[in-house]
């Protein structure tokens, strides 16, 4: 029996223990909130050998850091701002002074920034760090109450000081040693330091403290730019410098404005073709609001939640139709100067305003300006140092320089940073964080986090890719590996005769003729299939999925890690697993000839492919073969073969055709995305030798149809059993306005109509988009149509209205992911719910909680999206490498389709490489925006080029001299040679 006690609270304490405040609800009602807290004397201090506090101790008495000011043992007690601004420093392995983390600080960090809070939480668990969390608000001696006229900030500062002095006296009182550890309050706030010193507390600024540390040079680079004394413009000596950007409105004005409807809130998205333009989608307008020019974008960075004011309707306009490259335009900017009034600025202003004012199309959309920021979504960015921004390139120079870092992503502005290591960082990929963006500085200011390695080296590129898309790629820790079966790779299904928990309620399907069909080289086989004729003329078909939930139990370290990773990420030459290798490629992989645990969905289907009934069971299977798509296809088509396995494949194939036909009739879309395959030379060298488009075989679609069938059947079952928390997947129908542009282009260029009234209508009209002279045209239109759609997402069935469950692309009223539990976490959840639905195992309580399921799925959705982008970026990188290899030998000349037209260029798509690129013209050319046509001067007069036209381009990879980054450069060869333009 656990110890149940009543916490007694003396009446006199009411002032300290009760808190009354008023808060406003979402509906605008004011309510009174009364809370109490119980103060205790048993909140531990965490210092070794404390005679008073019991329990676990992490703060060592022996000195750990050889600090120039504090030679003996000492503990740091940082205030909130230190974590908010210097997280990179604190995370560094070199920064290893034991630390006391106050509850007040944790709560404030949590309140201010969730991402930082999550990093702080990870830090608390990190191995090398000695961090003790002290719950100061619950300890009677350190709990404080906000006084009248005291701001929450001042109250917290006072609480932090109180905790600091308590620690000092507590350590002295509970240790008999002559020299006891000192407490060092770390704060950037001068006033706080002064007050602390009055109270007899040692207080340091972060910089001051770090300077005394042994590795100070390296650590000082990690120091974020706080306070204006850090990066000061060198040339603006004569008084206050001019504001380049308008000030933000105060938060209360923003909130009131949003509420009254004259301001709008949304996520800022930058335009990848034009650094002077961004858009924001807000509910009040069907078209995104256009933010034109630096001043109107007012220091917004991709992903920030911003507040905009919309301009008068007569100022509305179309987006610029010119490609404006940041690097080309701004190459003369000086990093040392935060930039205000000099000559270059004038020139820049002129060229920028020219770039802004070019729009021929009369398609208007709302315009506006950013008046405030609700939330910054800054993170670390992979960058290159712009070599021209260095004042001294002497590689031994250790002087501090202010340089530009150019992010790899085209959506981000350049970042100014100060570093002592500038010369050694040139030519490397580095990680940079943005710290702040003052209105007197043209660029955001940041600091260097760490170097990833030489640019274009595969290791650096790969790591930067993973970082850029926030893929967790660290090896699995011990706690996670401890969750694996103790037998390791010797684990096998125990003999049935012995019974045991594994065989409980499991069906023995070992004699079933089951096989798997996957792409060549597939190691994580998570699905296998079978089909056989039944005596009544119907067909029994089964999908057998690796029984991952047998190994990954809820609420274990392995489960938490898998949930945090969300998905396995596939890169061209690497795979970042969601689950440890042993499970993914061995114990859970449904390899042939071995007994494996599976979760089976078995249907009785009529010969027409209608479901007569379906059942689900846990099973033991022994796959009879692992085919590649190609092998399965050959086997199916070989008239000489007629064994059980071949029959099974043929049966599955016939059914799959029926199923597909039904789906298509129901209005499913056949979408396309540019998929290419990279051939690697050998697994060691991993040099790509060629790129080819992926081939689709009949057997691909065979597997696909049955996976869809399984997912739909499982979705129905779990939704029925757990209507409040079923893990489902949906694809919302795209808003019609998304298609407007494509419809217009098709109409004007090809005379084709795209009917987007429903997915069925769209499917039908996509089929009609044919160009007899050009078979690839249809694929191109499909790719473009796909880009107009929304992306599918996981959701919790109790969180959205029933009529929004549908999957638009698949034309199914319900859907989930069940078939790949090895590589997708949502599938693991679906497995657990299905297992509970059939009464095999009880459902873990967290899967009954709507909030919990929502929270997990939010992460999984994000990881899924990021993983896909990382995969695509990896392909792009290798396509680039392959191109570089090829272009060194000969000119690469490929056919391409025009997909966009600009005033000064063409956007083209090279389908053979799955590559999108830009052809730029330096000279002004004639541009007809309404007809998506440009006229390029050629030797025999002007030649018109329009969207959907087939052209031929030369593709070269050039190294950008400044950033050392490879850049694909395309020039037009046919119909006109544009190399001179």
């Amino acid at each position, binding site marked *: *029996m*656990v*110890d*149940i*006690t*009543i*916490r*007694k*609270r003396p009446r006199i304490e009411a002032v300290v223990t*009760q808190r009354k405040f008023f*808060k406003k*609800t979402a509906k605008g*009602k004011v*309510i*009174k*909130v*009364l*809370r*109490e*807290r*119980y*103060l*205790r004397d048993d909140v531990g201090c965490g210092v070794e050998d404390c005679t008073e506090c019991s329990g676990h101790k992490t703060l060592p008495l022996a000195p750990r850091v050889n600090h120039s000011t504090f030679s003996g043992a000492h503990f740091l007690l940082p205030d909130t701002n230190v974590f908010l601004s210097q997280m990179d420093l604190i995370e560094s392995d070199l920064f290893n002074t034991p630390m006391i983390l106050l*509850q007040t600080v944790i709560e404030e960090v*949590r*309140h201010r920034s969730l991402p930082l809070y999550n990093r702080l*939480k990870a830090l*608390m668990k990190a191995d090398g760090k000695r961090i003790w*969390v002290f*719950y100061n*608000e*619950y300890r009677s001696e350190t709990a404080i109450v906000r006084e009248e006229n005291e701001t929450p900030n001042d109250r917290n500062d006072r609480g932090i000081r109180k905790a600091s002095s308590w620690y000092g006296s507590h350590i002295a009182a509970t240790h008999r040693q002559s020299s006891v550890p000192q407490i060092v309050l770390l704060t950037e706030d001068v006033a706080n330091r002064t007050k602390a010193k009055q109270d007899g507390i040692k207080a340091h600024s972060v910089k001051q403290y770090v300077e005394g540390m042994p590795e100070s040079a390296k650590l000082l680079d990690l120091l974020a730019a706080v306070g204006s004394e850090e990066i000061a413009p060198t040339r603006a000596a004569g008084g206050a410098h001019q504001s380049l950007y308008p000030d933000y409105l105060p938060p209360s004005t923003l909130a009131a404005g949003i509420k009254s409807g004259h301001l709008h809130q949304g996520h800022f998205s930058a335009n990848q073709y034009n650094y002077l333009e961004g858009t924001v989608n807000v509910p009040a307008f069907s078209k995104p609001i256009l933010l034109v020019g630096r001043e109107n974008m007012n220091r917004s960075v991709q992903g920030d939640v911003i507040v905009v004011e919309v301009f008068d309707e007569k100022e509305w306009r179309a987006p610029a139709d010119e490609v404006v490259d940041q690097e080309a335009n701004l190459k003369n900017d000086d990093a040392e100067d935060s930039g205000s009034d000099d000559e270059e600025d004038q020139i820049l202003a002129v060229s920028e305003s020219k770039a802004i004012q070019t729009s021929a199309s009369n398609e208007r959309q709302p315009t506006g300006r950013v008046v405030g920021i609700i939330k910054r979504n800054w993170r670390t960015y992979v960058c290159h140092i712009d070599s021209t921004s260095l004042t001294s390139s002497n590689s031994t120079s250790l002087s501090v320089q202010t340089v530009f870092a150019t992010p790899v992503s085209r959506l981000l502005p350049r970042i100014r940073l100060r570093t002592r290591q500038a010369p050694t960082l040139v030519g490397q990929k580095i990680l940079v964080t943005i710290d702040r963006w003052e209105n007197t500085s043209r660029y955001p200011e940041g600091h260097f986090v760490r170097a990833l390695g030489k640019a274009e080296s595969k290791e650096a590129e790969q790591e930067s890719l993973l970082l850029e898309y926030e893929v967790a790629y660290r090896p699995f820790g011990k706690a996670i590996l401890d969750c694996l079966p103790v037998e390791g790779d010797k684990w096998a299904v125990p003999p049935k005769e012995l019974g045991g928990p594994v065989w409980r309620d499991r069906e023995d399907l070992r004699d079933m003729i089951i096989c798997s069909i996957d792409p060549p080289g597939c190691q994580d086989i998570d699905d296998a299939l079978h089909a056989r004729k039944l005596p009544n003329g119907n067909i029994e078909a089964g999908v057998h999925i690796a029984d991952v939930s047998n190994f990954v139990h809820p*609420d274990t370290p392995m489960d938490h890690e898998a949930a945090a990773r969300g998905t396995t990420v596939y890169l061209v030459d690497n795979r970042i697993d969601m689950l440890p290798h042993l499970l993914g490629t061995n114990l859970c992989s449904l390899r042939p000839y071995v007994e494996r645990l599976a979760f089976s969905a078995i249907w009785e289907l009529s010969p027409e492919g209608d479901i007569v009934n379906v059942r689900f069971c846990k099973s033991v299977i022994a796959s009879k073969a692992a085919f590649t798509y190609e092998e399965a296809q050959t086997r199916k088509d070989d008239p000489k073969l007629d064994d059980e396995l071949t029959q099974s494949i043929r049966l599955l194939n016939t059914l799959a055709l029926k199923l597909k036909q039904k789906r298509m009739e129901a209005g499913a879309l056949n979408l396309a995305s540019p998929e290419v395959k990279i051939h690697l030379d050998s697994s060691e060298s991993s040099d790509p030798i060629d790129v080819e488009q992926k081939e689709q075989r009949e057997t691909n679609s065979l597997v696909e149809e049955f996976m869809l069938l399984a997912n739909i059947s499982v979705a129905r079952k779990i939704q029925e059993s757990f209507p*409040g928390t079923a893990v489902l997947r949906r694809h919302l129908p795209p808003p019609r306005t998304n298609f407007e542009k494509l419809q217009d282009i098709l109409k004007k260029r090809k005379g084709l109509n795209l009917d987007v009234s429903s997915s069925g209508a769209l499917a039908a009209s996509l089929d009609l988009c044919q160009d007899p002279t050009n078979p690839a045209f249809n694929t191109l239109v499909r790719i473009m149509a796909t880009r107009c759609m929304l992306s599918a997402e996981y959701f919790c069935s109790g969180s959205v209205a029933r009529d929004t469950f549908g999957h638009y692309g698949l034309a199914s009223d319900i859907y989930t992911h069940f078939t790949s539990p090895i590589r997708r976490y949502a599938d693991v959840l679906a497995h657990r719910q299905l297992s509970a639905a059939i009464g095999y195992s*009880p*459902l*873990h*309580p*967290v899967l*009954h*909680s709507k*909030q*919990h399921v929502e929270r997990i799925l939010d992460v999984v959705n994000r990881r899924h999206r990021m993983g896909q982008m990382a995969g695509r970026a990896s392909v792009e990188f290798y396509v680039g490498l392959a191109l570089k290899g090829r272009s060194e030998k000969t000119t690469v000349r490929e056919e391409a389709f025009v997909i966009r037209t600009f005033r000064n260029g063409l956007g083209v798509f090279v389908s053979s490489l799955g590559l999108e690129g830009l052809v730029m013209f330096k000279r002004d050319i004639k541009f007809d925006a309404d007809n998506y046509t440009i006229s390029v001067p050629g030797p025999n007069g002007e030649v018109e080029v329009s969207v959907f036209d087939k052209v031929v381009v030369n593709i070269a990879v050039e190294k950008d001299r400044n950033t050392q980054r490879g850049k694909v450069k395309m020039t037009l060869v046919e119909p006109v040679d544009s190399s001179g333009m």
Partner: protein
Amino acid sequence: MSSRVEILNEGGYRSDGRKQYELRDMAVDLSQQGAADGSATLSHGLTQVQASVFGPREAKLRSQTFYDRATINVELSIASFSTGERRKRSRNDKRTLELAAAIKSTFEPVVQTNLYPRTQIDIYIQVIQQDGGLLQACINATTLALACAGIPLLDFVCAVTGGVHSTSSMLDLTTLEENDLPYVTVATMPSSGKVTLATMETRLHVDRFEEIFRLACDAGQVIHKEMRAALRTRTAVLLAAVQSTTVPSGDAGGDKDDEPMYEYR
């Protein structure tokens, strides 16, 4: 809004500084309230209710009169200022009636109604302040008020709430916790170990339910001890008062542990 407050933090503390199995402060006041035959003001943390018992007295309505036992009426009124948001609830409010019905059915098998045929026992409960565990407070206050009124009970009835946060169970929830967690209110009879009430307003998995149920029963014992101590103190005071007026010599005190009215164990 509540997501900003951590229900149970990494250090094992709840938002009000308690640990999982710590109950809130319990304050009991058993002083006489007006004409009531027995009354009790009880608070669990910030939740405060006052229960008054009248009776057994002659039944007023013939339709409610039973020849072999007493009827129990429960009336609940919730002060409009008891919650943060001022809200007037009428006596016929669905939630109020529901609570009253739950209390009535909890006590019907416990009060020895067969000792008082053709009478009625009226229980009035006034909710003064709410911060979670309303039903629990009402039941505990009623037990005390009935005992003060000298109405024979088979046993104490001790109620407590229990909920689960992710996988950790916790006892005696505040409003903040109740809004966020699935929870149950369990009323037990500590000496027999019988359960007279278990209500749930949210879904709770059966395995979790069992765990919380057991915990709540154990917590019932702790609450029982507290309630018994309060009653003993009052008895002692009464006894002293009686002795000082009628038996000045003071040698007839007798055994202090012997509760004069009923042995509640």
